[in-house]
């Protein structure tokens, strides 16, 4: 991190499970949501009831890495992103999507969505339901109708 003689402005982010993180404002505002709160309301302690501590810690790690001013295409950043999102647990990725969406961090949202999309590709319908724990709310007739509508996709 670069050092300057100026004091860096800090903010405190509080997760849904009451964990507090002290972060430089310049890093925190990677999140458009936090940026708007600071600009509109000027809070120094920002409650984030929709993000738990574990996920918030990871998001802060991401924002810190991506605000160092280095190019998003650099090898260093790419390597970081690969390892950062390298989770076998769908739950972790889901929590990240929800957090990135709520905090409005576009680049993180895009990357996590792409990661989840990579899992979905080539998965059968049953596999998608099992992995993402989605309940099938179609009747057999409804399901058949939709399948027939997109017969080419099920070949």
């Amino acid at each position, binding site marked *: 991190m670069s050092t300057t003689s100026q004091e860096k402005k800090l903010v405190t982010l509080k997760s849904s499970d009451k964990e507090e993180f002290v972060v430089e404002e310049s890093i925190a505002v990677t999140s458009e949501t936090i940026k708007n709160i600071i600009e509109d309301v000027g809070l120094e302690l920002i409650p984030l009831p929709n993000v738990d501590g574990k996920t918030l810690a990871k998001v802060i790690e991401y924002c810190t890495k991506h605000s160092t001013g280095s190019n998003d295409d650099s090898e260093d950043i790419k390597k970081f992103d690969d390892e950062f999102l390298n989770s076998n647990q769908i739950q972790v990725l889901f929590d990240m999507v929800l957090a990135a969406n709520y905090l409005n961090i576009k680049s993180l949202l895009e990357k996590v969505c792409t990661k989840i*999309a990579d899992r979905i590709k080539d998965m059968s319908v049953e596999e998608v339901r099992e992995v*993402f724990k989605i309940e099938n709310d179609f009747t057999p007739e409804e399901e058949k109708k939709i399948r027939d509508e997109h017969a080419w*996709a099920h070949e």
Partner: protein
Amino acid sequence: MKFDLLPQDCVSYILSCTSPRDACRSSTVSSEVRDAADSNLMWEKFLLSDYPEIISRLVSPVEFKSKKELFLKLSTPLLIDGGKKIFSIDKSTSKKCYMLSARDLYIPWATNSLYWCWKSLLESRFVEVAELIMVCWLEIQGTINTKMLSPNTTYGAYLIVKFPDRAFGLETLPSEVFVEVGEHRSQGTIYLRCNGGIKTELGRDSVDTLGSRDIGGSVERVIEKREDGWLEIELGDFYNDGSEREVKMSLREVKGQHLKGGIVVEGIELRPKL
């Protein structure tokens, strides 16, 4: 884990990072996923950014009530540019595909009815196809500008033909095929063997997909059957990096002094090569 906590926009975004095929397949997972999979937000991403311009060039107007419907319609072959070409979006990759009609190609002597004749065939989507009566100099060439195609894509160029029963002289010598873009050249040779029980040394019908063989730098191509009843010959391939360049695609048999005839040319197709 509560999947339904995810806002529909997020689900749509995730699906838009897959492919049209995966997105349509996901419609059967649950009603919520189906709604996200049908959203305009998602299909906007699959639709090419210049689709209004493409629609304006179609011969017949296309009506659509949703972006998904528009995508599915554009993924069927449609006449474009006054009927000289056919356009479609490849469903798996969302990339542009074109077929140049025989009229859009450069075929020496094609205007002379002693050598080539133009006729309508029910099996062709174009108004006319070209049938070779007889020539010594057989050359069929097409050009296209890469700006019409999708960037960052490898394309294959295929000559679409048929061989009526009266075909002759085409297999005496191998024809040369090539694709040239700037410095890049992809080339091969092919024996224009007609179907109809002619066996190769391996004892199989020559139009079976035997795969191409590499013969000293120049690949020997084979004729492949298509689903629409035509045959195709790969002329070559190239990578479109997005810069604007002319692509030249050609088949020729100009070394043999003998007469050849009977090949029917529908056009040259360009489609993404996986």
